[in-house]
């Protein structure tokens, strides 16, 4: 009997588990097309829409030979009739071997994992956690830098509400990073995360300016979107909206190994002329999501690294 897991949060993953998941993702990158999950059914329950994440998970499942069921619009489901999350999860667990779920309510995936007889994969729960995004960010950093250790990671934009940057801090705590937080005052890194950094001996510096000098020592430049709706003071938004935009001419002095990441979708925070710059990595980053999610789906179903490297269902 294979041991089933849930994948609900990044916060409690050990260093070993993170590196293990990266090794798994590397194998899927070598051979993404397999039939290892032939006969399995994966449910993708998107109680709130997220096309990008859903396509990535469904592609991961399809390329492993699984069948996919699910919904993409909660308006067509019983939730809109007032069905509890518990009832929906219990019903779908009769049909599927894994439930991948996206929900606007925080803690929904944790609760689902406590009641569900089949593994739960959190594909985002409100402003709380989005662990598969974090996993693909880690894989992208590892792949471009050859290591997760001792890196200078610059987080830019909305550091207050951006859950991806919060998860990244937690996951990187094992690897002695130096963080630089670059944000307008209104969207600065919340105190609780600065306390978290201090408690875990994570070095960090804060900046409000964003220019070529500030980022010259970066290994990773992690851009996020500054959203208008986050500002209580629209004058403040107008003042800062063009400050946190990465332009091609800001990249002349950066380190050779530096890569630009972005969880996407981007609006205007990375100028389009950056796309052809060799430091741009955000599109490949999204592709890494496929391999990271293949690793996650196999892991929760109890397949281990050995099963993946000895897999005789690989389609070449």
């Amino acid at each position, binding site marked *: 009997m294979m041991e089933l897991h849930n994948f609900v949060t990044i916060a409690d993953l050990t260093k070993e588990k993170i590196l293990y998941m990266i090794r798994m993702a590397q194998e899927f990158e070598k051979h993404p097309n397999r039939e290892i999950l032939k006969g399995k059914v994966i449910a993708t329950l998107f109680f709130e829409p997220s096309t990008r994440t859903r396509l990535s998970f469904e592609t991961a499942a399809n390329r492993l030979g699984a069948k996919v069921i699910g919904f993409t619009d909660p308006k067509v489901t019983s939730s809109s009739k007032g069905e509890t999350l518990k009832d929906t999860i219990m019903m779908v667990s009769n049909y599927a071997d894994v439930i991948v779920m996206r929900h606007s309510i*925080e*803690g*929904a995936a944790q*609760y689902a994992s406590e009641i569900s007889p089949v593994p739960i994969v959190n594909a985002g729960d409100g402003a709380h956690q989005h662990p598969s995004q974090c996993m693909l960010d880690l894989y992208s950093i590892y792949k471009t830098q050859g290591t997760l250790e001792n890196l200078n990671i610059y987080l830019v934009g909305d550091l207050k509400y951006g859950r991806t940057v919060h998860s990244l801090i937690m996951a990187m705590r094992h690897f002695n990073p130096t963080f630089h937080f670059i944000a307008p005052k209104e969207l600065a890194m919340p105190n609780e995360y600065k306390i978290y950094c201090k408690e875990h001996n994570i070095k960090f510096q804060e900046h409000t300016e964003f220019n070529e000098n500030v980022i010259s020592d970066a290994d990773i430049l992690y851009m996020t979107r500054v959203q208008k709706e986050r500002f209580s003071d629209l004058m403040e938004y107008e003042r800062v909206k063009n400050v946190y935009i990465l332009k091609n001419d800001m990249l002349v002095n950066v380190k050779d190994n530096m890569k630009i990441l972005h969880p996407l979708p981007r609006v205007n925070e990375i100028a389009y002329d950056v796309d052809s710059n060799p430091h741009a990595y955000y599109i490949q980053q999204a592709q890494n999501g496929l391999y990271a999610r293949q690793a996650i789906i196999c892991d929760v179903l109890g397949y281990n690294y050995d099963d993946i490297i000895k897999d005789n269902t690989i389609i070449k």
Partner: protein
Amino acid sequence: MNKNEMLVAAIQNGTVIDHIPNEKTNQVAELLGLNSLDTPVTIGNNFRSKKLGKKGLIKVEDKFFSDEEISRLAVVAPNIVLNIIKDYEVVEKKTVTTPDEIRGIVKCNNPKCITNNEPMSTLFNVVDKEKGILRCHYCDMEQDINNVELI
């Protein structure tokens, strides 16, 4: 036995809960489930107290509360004292210890938390007993134990 306690009849066996902040007496009674007991219960308020000004007092005959039941009181009245009475004598004084987790008592402050959107129990981990910081097991939102809303 002090003068305040003499104001209500002494009990032979049971528990006398003392030093309850006046306004918390009813919540203490509720958290201990005194309504559903069938032994005699006396609930009093506005007793004079040097420390509190006015205090509440509860006497429950023939009932001894478990440590788990007592720890529930940490969210409303962490400084109360429970006198265990046997044969009219105080044989033990118990104080409230803040538990490691608090289940089903406190409401989560986060309106977008699953516990406020689904018929289910809340669960908090007490992350700092000294400062009284509770963290929601589901959404991770923190709140102050002195400032909670009970379910």
